[in-house]
Every structure is written in C-alpha cells, then in structure tokens.
C-alpha cells in the first residue's frame, strides 16, 4: 500500500514538473485576444472615421460651434457662452478618426497588406487612400483653425514618435492645399470606396468636397497671403466644388440612441434644454422677415412670439429666462436623426460671391443670390426667394457687399459647421457679434482661438512650450497665423 502511494506521489510530481517547464508552447496562442479582431478592415475603419464627424469630442459637433457664432445662447448655465471654457480637447480627434484614417492609408501603401481581403474590401487602393486624405485634410484644417499651431508633420506615427512637434499654421495650410489638390485629381478619375456613410461611395462627390474645402482654405488665408489664396481658390473653383444641394457634405444622425444628435440628447433624452436660439439671430431674422425663422426657431411657449435668448448673461441675470419664455431650437435641428451639414452648395456660392467681391472672379451679386436661393431650397422655401431678396436690406449692395455676403452665409450656416462661421467672423469681422455683458478671458471680445489640451503640457512638454513661444500665450485671445489684425 505504502509503496503504491509513494509511486503515485512520485509519478504525479514528475508529471507536474514536466508539464510546468515544457508545456508553454501554446502560450502564444493563449495570449491572442478572442475579443477583438486580429485584422483591421479598412471599410469599417472608414465608417468609424466618418461617424466621428458627428461626435462632440471626436468630431465637429461640439455645442461651442453654435455658441461662438451666436446661433444659440445658454439659458441657465452660461459658462461656455461667457468663454469660461478656455481649453478644448483635441486628443480624441487625433486618436480616433485621424488614427483610423492614417491606418487606412498605411494599409493601402504597404504592399504586404494592400492585397489582403481586409484591405481590398474597402474599395480600390487609390480611392481608399485619397478619400482618407480628403477626410484627414478636413479634420486637420478644423484642428488648425481652432488651435493654430498643432502637430501635423510628425503626428499619427504611433510609437515612432510620441512627442510630435507643432507645425506652424502656414506649413499646415501649405501641406493641406497639396493634399486636397492631389487627392481630388485622382478621385475625379473615378473608383469605388466602401463604408462611405457620407457620399455613399461616390468618389466624384469626394473630389467636389475636396475642391470645396480647398476654396474655403484659400479664403481663410486671404488676409495673410492674398496671392496664394487667389491662385488656390481659382484652381479649386475650376476643378469644381459642390454644385447643387444634392451634393452637400452632410453627416446624418440616426434614430437610435448610439447614433443620435447631441441636441436631441440635450433636448429630449436628458430633458435639460440648456440652449435656446440667440436673441441676435432671432432679431436679425425678424428684421429681414426671413422665411427660415419658423424653421430655425420655435415660438416661445408663454407668448407664442419669437423671442431670442440674450447671449452670455451672467447666471445671476438668467433668472428671468427659462425654456418657456424664449424661442427654442427648431425641431428639424433637435430631431434624433437631425443632419449636420459640413459643406453646402450655399456655402460654395457665398464663397464665390466673396471671391468676386475681391475681384478674383466676376459677378458677386449672382453668386450671392445663388447662395440665398440654395439655402432656402435646403428648407423647401424656394417660393419665398423673390420676395425675400427684393427687400432693401437683403438685396445685394456692392458698398457693403462683404458684410451682406458673410451675413447671409452666416444665416445659411445655422446649426451646420458653425466653426466655419466663427472663422468667417475672425477673418472678416462679420457678422458684428456682441460678446454679451460679461465675457471672460477674451478682453471683451469673442475668442480668437482655443487653448490646448491640458495634458499636452505634461506629455509633450517641450513641443508645447515651443509652440507657445512661437505662437503666443495659450489663451483665447491669441491670434493664429491667418488671423492678422487689420
């Protein structure tokens, strides 16, 4: 008996030891995650990069886009419209959509991966690369217009460089012009791309959007480098921008909780209703007898009148206002499946009108009117066009043409990519926005840029300091390169 027990113990111990020291061969396969995909898929990556457009953190849908241009005003807590928010976080834009786009480009450029089915599933190689380049350029222009100097040339390299330097805005714009030109040249040749929730795979529309963005970029820099601006604008115009409302670049939210519009979340899902239409916009629309007013805004519940919310009141002065006595935002914009227009035909026409006003191309007036017509058509208000533009305040008048063009562009851009309206204000001063009774941190003005993510000072310290040394204080008041004082 004892003997067997002893033998049993010895056997078991030996087996243990053999097992422990030798059986590690399957360790590699054990450590492969069954939870996530082992291979990327460029089709799905593109969808993700496009989905980010409608995100507040990762894209261009933060409420501040509608607050700075005073489309809307905060009702009770007025911190953001009083510019108490200084810092805006650009990290998620880099780590989510831009990284996904860079991955699409890298997988298509690498001969080893380019032929794999998980890459070819995304469309043809050239189209995938160039669609990604256009979208990347859009995000980077968005970034530099908000923050000024940003990491560009050394960004998105992963472990190879975790402390990218900041490029000057001039260098970034130079690069973006090239990116947009080259990408559209190829996309105009045709091709196919999958997972495209913006243009449904129509690469020709991607080319038109690229040209539209290039026209916008040209106007952004026209005060600081007029020659280059003119040349780029004309080249982009000749290549062809968005030419009808059906070609608009529009991000569409969906009627499901994971993809719903942020204003729906605020108005309906959480029932906070933090925002109303601004007093300035309402008053302008009333002044112009604008047919878009009842679409843009709802009458105040208490009175049935259109009453705007004064912009940027200190909280102690907001007690007189609530969701019942001011105009809330129109249902179209607070719907769960609302649309977020990034670039529209109306914008293109207003850009052309501005170029004509500058003498780059002929006929400012007709482009101005085309812009208004296109905007009204977006809301099925074509019939109101003639009456509307017949009003003396609306009819084009070359003497204050620029103000009229930008103001109509501003109205047309309501609840769309408001950052572009803020950019228009910064470079033209129009429309004439009053920052409210107690703006903070801006020396009594509107912000001219936004401050960098706090963590940059601790994680990319030297480059952050270099950027500030070159660009100026990391404050709302610092002007970026193209924003020169008159």
């Amino acid at each position, binding site marked *: 008996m004892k003997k067997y*027990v002893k033998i049993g113990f010895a056997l078991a111990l030996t087996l243990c030891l053999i097992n422990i020291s030798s059986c590690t061969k399957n360790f590699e396969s054990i450590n492969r995650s069954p939870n996530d995909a082992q291979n990327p898929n460029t089709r799905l990556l593109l969808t993700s990069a496009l989905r980010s457009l409608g995100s507040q953190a990762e894209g261009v849908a933060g409420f501040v886009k509608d607050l700075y241009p005073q489309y809307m005003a905060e009702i009770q807590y007025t911190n953001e419209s009083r510019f108490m928010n200084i810092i805006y976080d650009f990290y998620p834009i880099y780590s989510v959509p831009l990284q996904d786009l860079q991955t699409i480009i890298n997988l298509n450029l690498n001969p080893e991966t380019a032929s794999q089915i998980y890459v070819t599933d995304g469309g043809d190689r050239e189209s995938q690369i160039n669609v990604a380049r256009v979208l990347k350029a859009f995000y980077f222009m968005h970034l530099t217009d908000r923050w000024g100097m940003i990491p560009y040339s050394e960004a998105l390299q992963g472990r190879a460089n975790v402390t990218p330097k900041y490029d000057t805005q001039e260098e970034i714009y130079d690069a973006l012009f090239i990116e947009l030109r080259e990408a559209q040249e190829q996309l105009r040749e045709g091709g196919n791309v999958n997972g495209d929730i913006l243009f449904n795979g129509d690469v020709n529309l991607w080319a038109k959007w690229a040209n539209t963005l290039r026209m916008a970029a040209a106007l952004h820099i026209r005060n600081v480098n007029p020659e280059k601006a003119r040349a780029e604008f004309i080249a982009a115009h000749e290549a062809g921008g968005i030419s009808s409302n059906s070609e608009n670049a529009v991000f569409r939210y969906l009627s499901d909780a994971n993809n719903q519009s942020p204003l729906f979340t605020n108005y309906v899902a959480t029932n906070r209703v933090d925002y109303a239409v601004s007093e300035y916009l309402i008053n302008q629309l009333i002044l112009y007898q604008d047919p878009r007013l009842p679409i843009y805004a709802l009458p105040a519940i208490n009175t049935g009148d259109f009453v705007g919310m004064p912009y940027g009141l200190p909280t102690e002065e907001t007690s007189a206002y609530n969701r019942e006595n001011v105009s809330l935002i129109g249902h179209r914009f607070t719907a769960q499946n609302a649309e977020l227009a990034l670039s529209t035909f109306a914008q293109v026409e207003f850009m052309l009108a501005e170029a004509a006003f500058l003498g780059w191309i002929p006929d400012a007036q007709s482009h101005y009117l085309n812009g208004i017509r296109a905007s009204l058509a977006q809301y099925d208000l074509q019939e109101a066009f003639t009456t509307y533009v017949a009003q003396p305040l609306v009819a084009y008048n070359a003497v204050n043409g620029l103000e009229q063009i930008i103001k109509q562009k501003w109205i047309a851009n309501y609840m769309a990519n408001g950052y572009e309206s803020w950019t228009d204000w910064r470079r033209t001063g129009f429309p004439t926005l009053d920052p409210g009774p107690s703006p903070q941190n801006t020396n009594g003005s509107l912000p001219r840029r936004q401050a960098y993510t706090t963590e940059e000072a601790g994680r990319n310290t030297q480059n952050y300091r270099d950027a500030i040394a070159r660009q100026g204080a990391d404050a709302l008041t610092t002007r970026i390169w193209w924003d020169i004082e008159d």
Partner: protein
Amino acid sequence: MKSALLSILIIWLLSLGVSHAQTRTISGRIVSSSSGQPLAGATVRVTDTDMAVQTDALGNFVLQLPDDASNRLTIDYVGLRQQIFTIGADDTILIKLEDDDQSVGDVVVTALGVQRTRNSLGYSVQAIKGEELTMVRQPDLNTALAGKIAGVQVQSTSGAAFGTSTIRIRGINSLSGGNPIYVVDGVVVEPVAVNMDDVADLTVLKGPAATALYGQRGSEGAVVIKTLVGRNRDGIGVTFNQATTFESVYLLPRYQNEYAGGYTQEWSTFSYNPNVAPSYLAEFDGVKILNYAADESWGPRMDGTMYMPFYGWDPSHPQFGQLTALIPQPDNVRSFFNTGITANTNVAFDKAGDDYQTRFSFTNVSRTGIVPNSKLGRNWLSSNASVNLTDRLTISAIMNFQHEVYNNRPNDGYASQTTGSFNQWFQRQLDMNTLRDYRRPDGTFRSWNIISPINPNPLYWDNPFTEAYENTSFDTYQRVYGNIMANYQLTNAFSAALIGRGTFRNAEETGRIASNTLQLDRYVQNMNNQNEVNYVGTVVFKEQYGDFKIDAAAFGEYRRNQTRFTNAATAGGLAVPGLYTLEASVDRPTVDTRYFDQRVHSLYGYAAVGFRDYLYLEGNIRNDWSSTLPVENNSFLYGGLSTSFIFSQFIEPNDFFSFGKVRASFARVGTDTNPYEIYQTYNLRPAYGNDPQMTVPDVIPNPNLLPTLSTSYEIGTELRFFNSRLLFDFNYYTRSARNQILNLPISSTSGFTNSLINAGQIDNYGFEFTLGGTPIRNSNFKWDLNANLGINRNQIVRLDDQVNNLQIELDGAPSSFGFTGSPRITLNAYEGQAYGQLIGMGILKDQNGNRLVNEEGFYQRQDNMNLGSIIPDFTGGLTSTFAYKNFHAGFSLDFQKGGKYMSISSMFGHYSGMLEQTAGLNERGAPRRDPVSQGGGTLLPGVKQDGTPNDIYVDTQRLYRENMFSLWEEWVYDRSFIKMREINLGYDLPSRLFHNTPFRTVSFSLIATNPWLIYAQNRNVDPTILETSWFEGGQLPSTRSWGFSLKVGL
C-alpha cells in the same frame, strides 16, 4: 437571561459553603518562559474553585490543597497565557507561563503558509491574531488593519456605500498603484471574501524578501491568513459571536443657513399667463416664488417671508396652493439619512481527535445603510477538515462559500443624485420631510428642482428619495474558494504533497434608471465570472544535523486565470415603462462580451539553515513562465537571500537588555502583465445603422515587452528591554524597479492615448519603526501600547526614451480631473522627481510668496503650477489595550502627516453658495453677499500688483463662480489626519460563575468604530474616505458606529 445569571450566582454561593476536610501542601514557583524571570503577583487558583493565592516577589507560592479538590491549578498572569497545570506526585512544582503577546509570539506564518519562528526571519513581518480583528467588528478586513501595521496606508470609503478599504504597503512601488494579495490557506482571494471570524493568524508580508515565493502577484506585499482549525479541548466545541452596531452620519460639510435657493437675493413673483398656465393657478398671480430650476443657494434671505414652495404648484400635493414661510433647515441633509444597523452573527463548531480535526463555521452579516433603501447581506459557510488516513498520509480540505447581496449600494462621486446634490447642487431651504412623499398618485415623481411653476418636470435633479427608491440596483456575488491537499511523509526528513486550489467568483450587477425620472429609463445587466485554478506539487525536507537545522522545499505550480463577462445595457429607453429587461430596449442594446485567459507555470523553492538558536540564513529562487509576455521573454528567474542573527545570545542576561536581533535581506521579484496586451488588435464600435464600425485601439501594444524586475534590500533590528516590556523594531528598505510595465499615457497627437512600455527605473526607499511596550503590568492590571510609523520616498530615475513625465492613473483613479473647457488638474511623475505631483491652475504670488490680486480684487490665476504631492510625509498608527481583572479595553487610531488631495465637493459647495464661508458677515462687518457698493463683498487675503495689501472687495458670488472655479490651488488640501478607528470595552465573565454549566467562556463588549476624526484640515470632507486615491468628486458622508458584541464558548 436574567434567570440564567441568577442560577449561576446561586450555584456559586452554594459552592462557598463546602467545608474542607484534609489538605496537601503544594509549593511552587511561577516564571516567565521567555525570560526565565520570576512572576510576582500571579494568581494560582485551584481550577473551578475560588481557592486562590498570589505569588510573592520571587514568584513563589504555597497552597493548601484539600484532598477532595481537583488536582488541577489554573495560573493567571495578566498578559501571559493562562495555563492549567496538573499536579502530579511532586509537591514542589515549577510552572512556566507562555507569553501571550503577539509581538513577541514565537511562530509566525510566512509566505506559502510556512510557519517560522520569528527569530529566524531575515525580513520584517507583522502578525496579528484573529481575535484582534473581531474585537471591534469593523466591516471589512482592511479597515480592521488600520493603525496596526507599520508602513501600511489604509484607504477607506464611506460606510454609506458599504465600501471596503484598500491598503497600500510601503507607499507606492508600482506606478499604477497596486495592492497586496490576500492569501487564505494558500488561496489568493479578494479581501472581501475573508471571513474575520475564521482567521486564526494574519501576517502582513511587506517587501519582496518576504513575498518572493508568491512570485509576481506578491510584488506589492501579501496578507497571509491561516484559518482556524478544530482543537481538542474541553467543552462541546461551539463558539457563538454576535455583534450589533448602529451606524449614523458623522461628518457633514458646514452649510450656510441664511440664504435659500436661487441665483439672486431679489424675490421673483409668479405672473399668471392664461395662454400656458391652467386656470386654477390664476389666483396665485403675484405670489413670491423661488427659482426652483436653480440648483444653487444664492437666493433670497431665509427671513420668514411667505412664498410658494415647489410642492405648492402640484395639484396632487396635500399642500397645493399653500404659502409657507422661508426659514432655515440646518439639519435637512442629516435628516435624509437613516441609522444603519449591522448584525454580525457567527457560530462555529470544532472538534479534533488524535487523527482528525474539523471545524465548521457559519457567519451572517445583515446590514442596512444610512442611505434609505440600501441593504447588504452576506453569508459565509466554511469548513476545514483534515484526517490522517495512515500515520504518514494526511488529507485535508478547506472550503469557503460566500454569498453576498447588495440592494442599492449608493454611489460616491460627482453628480451622484444624493450627496452629489446635497453638498454641491441644492437649495438650502429644502425641508427633507417635504421630499419624502416623492411619488404622485399618477406614478410620476415630484422633484424640488422643477423647471417652473407650470412645468413639474425636474431640470437637473430627481428627488433624492426617487433616487433611493426607484433608481435601484441589485448586485449579487458568489465566491467559492478552497483547497484540497494530500501530504505524505516519505521519511522522517522528507515529505511530499499535492495541492489543488481554486477560487471562483460569480457576479451579477444590475441597475435601473426608472421610467418617468430625470434620465431616460434604462436597465443595465453585467455578468462576470472569474476563476483561478492552481495545482501544486511539492517536496519538503526538514532535518537537524548537529547544530544545524535545515528546512527546504521545492514546488512546481500550474496556474490558470480566466475571466468572462457580459455587460449589457438598454439603449434609447424602455419599450414598456417599468419593464427592466434587456429585451425592452428600444434600440439595439449595447453589449460588451469578453473572455480572458492567463496561464503561469512556476518552479520554485527555498532552503533555510539555522545554526543553534541565533544564526539563520535563507535563500529562495523562483522561475515563472507567463503566457502574457512575448514568447522569447516569458521565462523569468528571481529570488532572494536573507539572514538573521540573535546577538543577545552573546550578552549576559540582565534586567535592562532582554533581546537583540539584526536582520538583512536581498530579494528580486519579477512581474508580468495582463493578457492580450502585446499584439495589435482592432475594436468594434456600435454600428452606424447597418454599417459596422472598427477603430484602432488607443493603446500601442508592445510585442517586445520584458518582465518587470524589482530589486530590494532591507536591513532591520528588533530590540527588547526591561524584561521585554519595551520593544523596538526598526527597518530600512530600498527597492528599485526596472522595466516596470506601464501603460504610459502619451500625447494623443501620436494617434494613441497610451503606450505599453517597460519604464526605465523607479526607486523607493523607506523606514519603518515600531515602538511598543507594557508600561504597567501587575497581577491585576496590564497596559499595552504599540505605536508604528512608516516613511516612504520614491523617485522616477528613468522613464522612457521619449516621454519624461508619467501622468499616472493611480489605483484606478483618473490621472486628471477637470470640467469641460476648464484647466484640468493632473497627477504627474517627472523623471528625476518624486511621484505624485499635482499640477494645475494656481494663484500667482509675488517674490515674498503673497498671493497677487488683479485690479478688480480677484486672484491672478496661473496655469501649470505645482500644487504639491499626494505622497504623505509619514503614516502611522497607535494601538493600546488595557486589562484589569476581567475587564479589557482598547483603542486604535491611525494618522497621516502631509500629502495633498483635491476636493470637488468643496469647490462646488462654494460655487453654489451652500457652504458656510459663502455667507455671513465680511471683513468689514457687512453681509458678505450684499453688493460691494453697499459694504458687502469679500476681501481676499493678498497683495495688489504694486505690493500694497489688497483692499478691494469683490462680489462673493462672482468670486466663487468665476475666479475660484477650477482654481485648483484653492481646492487642494493637506490630507494630514488623526482618526480614532476603534474603541472597545469588554468584560469576561469569570469562568467559575458557570463552571457547572455547558458554558466555557462568556464575554461582552461595547464597541465603537470610526468614532472620532481628531484632526483634519478641511472638515467639509473626511480625508480618510476619499472617493479615489487623490481626489473626491462628491463623497458620501463619513459614518460612525457603536454597538455591542457577545461571545460565548460552549
């Protein structure tokens, strides 16, 4: 109960009357077994009688023993173990009493459950007896350790959340925090799984020298627990413990009680608008109203003005349309909370014979929290049995089952709907009684924070009672752990064992957001299953060769850890209000299912040599193979050496110096990482309609990852003086971690948020002191005092080739905190500096350190200022026990000096005008909240730009809402504290009272836990229960409990 006591008393009185016939004279001497010194004043009593004498100054006694009396003597000496001595034929006897004091105890449990004499250890350990843990009935093990172990920092949570504490041993070694492992009879478990009623011995192993045999998991220390076994003894083997405690709110912030809700002191009135308001409100046109939508308290003075309260607008409310006087409600928050009751009941049965031992134990904890509708139930079943099948083969099994149920465990944290509101966003005039009736007859809910008189929906806040009774959660946990072991004695020197161990945890956590409340209704269900299985084979060798004693063992171990979870939540609301199932999700539910698998194979062993009783040397070595590391790096070897020398053996015994030992050790320990971190994968995101989405994960994986290796050196000494009545223990250690595996946060402009790296080098060093003793000891009275102190310092020597600052996520706390758009406060560790620097918005100072104000009188703000370190200067504790005859008492407190923390509750408590400092009179005697032009306002201490003292008053509301918002320097506080953790007072009924009954022991105690926060800088929060390791965002109030405990042995 009364009659039982009475009968015991009668029995005792009767026994006094028994007369004695013949006697035998016994003489003897009582000495201490540890020092050999005679014990004066010891009580020598004939067992189970009242016949007793005391020893004289030389420890001698003489006793006349009746012939018919028992031949057993019971010897008591306070502080020493009671001994029962059976008298033989000899009339002259010598009795040695064993020391009962744990700090001098002979044998301690070390790594792998190996029992060692304390003298032989070459590293510092601290041991605690099970009774010390159950004396005061702390709710969890880690809290019970507070103040008792040098170099251990206890981080608690509020009792209101049923939270369990975490402990950190020897400061922060691992930059991601890191907690010790808890090993119960060899099984690694969560601390909450430990049943303190089952603990026999607990040892805290602090450094790598002590824990290296546990391998990588012991790198942050180990709490090693040996559970009780069955004992062969008198009685039927039943013990019964019952404790009931009552818990109530201790600290609340100091609120202001002058101003009501709103944003302005001016009253508003209701103006009736027939277009929108129902006609029955017409009669209230012109009544005074508060701004109900405001969740702040800058409103009108609470001066008795008649106004319409929020419920006055609710036609379903009994007080509809009735004005009420605006008066202060200083106790409104306190009255929200209940008195929580905890009943802890344990019954255990044990029995042992020559060839077996068994013990069964059942514990029930029923607890109600201070937050209404919160409950906790916990049951443990455990069994411990071993049997000697042959004289060489022993089989043993230990099995523990725990079932835990939480009803509505309240949340800590910013914007939690109870205290997150009370201390940050609330209206001070609210009377809690007007909120209790939270539900309207139609099933909708009443909130104080209504949008307007005509819109009864809540704006930002539900009624706190709606939160407590409707937004409920229900969590259950089942934990099973144990082991089975076969041990075979091969020869006298060799034995071999096979051990199987397992720990299994099943968790289900569900939560509801009720239909018709503030937020969209929602149901969340998380299922989590974790298990660990170990198989160990071992050979042990023990032999004595002359003066050398050898103890060695070799082990082979296989370990597998698996985790499975499915976390699911409804999206877009519930299709049927009140139906809380995943199927009721309006949109596609969000689902996250994951599986993790990790294997570690290990070979390890130790060899210890003792020479006589004074020189010891021990070495250990271990090799791990971990599946989580790259194949070429997955095998790593480490180990250590330690030595101990009892130099007092070479000193003549004397009254001053009793004992002296020096010890030294070197150790290295290796650590792997989590599964699935080294290969690139891609994540799915929730689909966009029918289009699936994929994104590149935020962390850069590292296919070349190396194991972390920490090297530690430790020297120390243990000294005893005055017949061991004064004890001193000192320890110094260094620790250097190379290739620390860190999830380094990086600039996301790289495209990633984190990079998994091997950090260069992180060094720690520290000191631990223990000073204890017995200032008073005589036959009736004994007073023990034990103090400990720990100091730890660290430095980031090298981090990464590109990044020189680690913004750390410590113990799960975020590495930064802030509000959208505002400067954040970050936790940093720069290369060349110590870990734990807070950096954020500060106040500009002049060259003399005075705070500078601007031309408006507000502080000048400056970003990226260093606001101090969260690392304490030192931590420590003090425990004391008193024994007088059958009474015993004790307390324990712990303290910390230095270290910073940040308080969001304080910032928003000021922002929203709720705290005392925002009201009252200002520096010139006028109401602080009045306009500056009328003498009001606040004068900030500081100087103007020209260096003259500040004389510009600023508007108080603007000060806290604008200037002080996110001005982190103002909201960073010193975390120094002194806290009384527990007090007890007990009485052991003399055994002779019930010697004819089945009772063996009966004792009764009054107990108190967390009775007194003796010192803290900012008493608006309790620094010992911060929500995270370095800040709190809205903590639940600290609580204190008192109660009583009864222990009975049968």
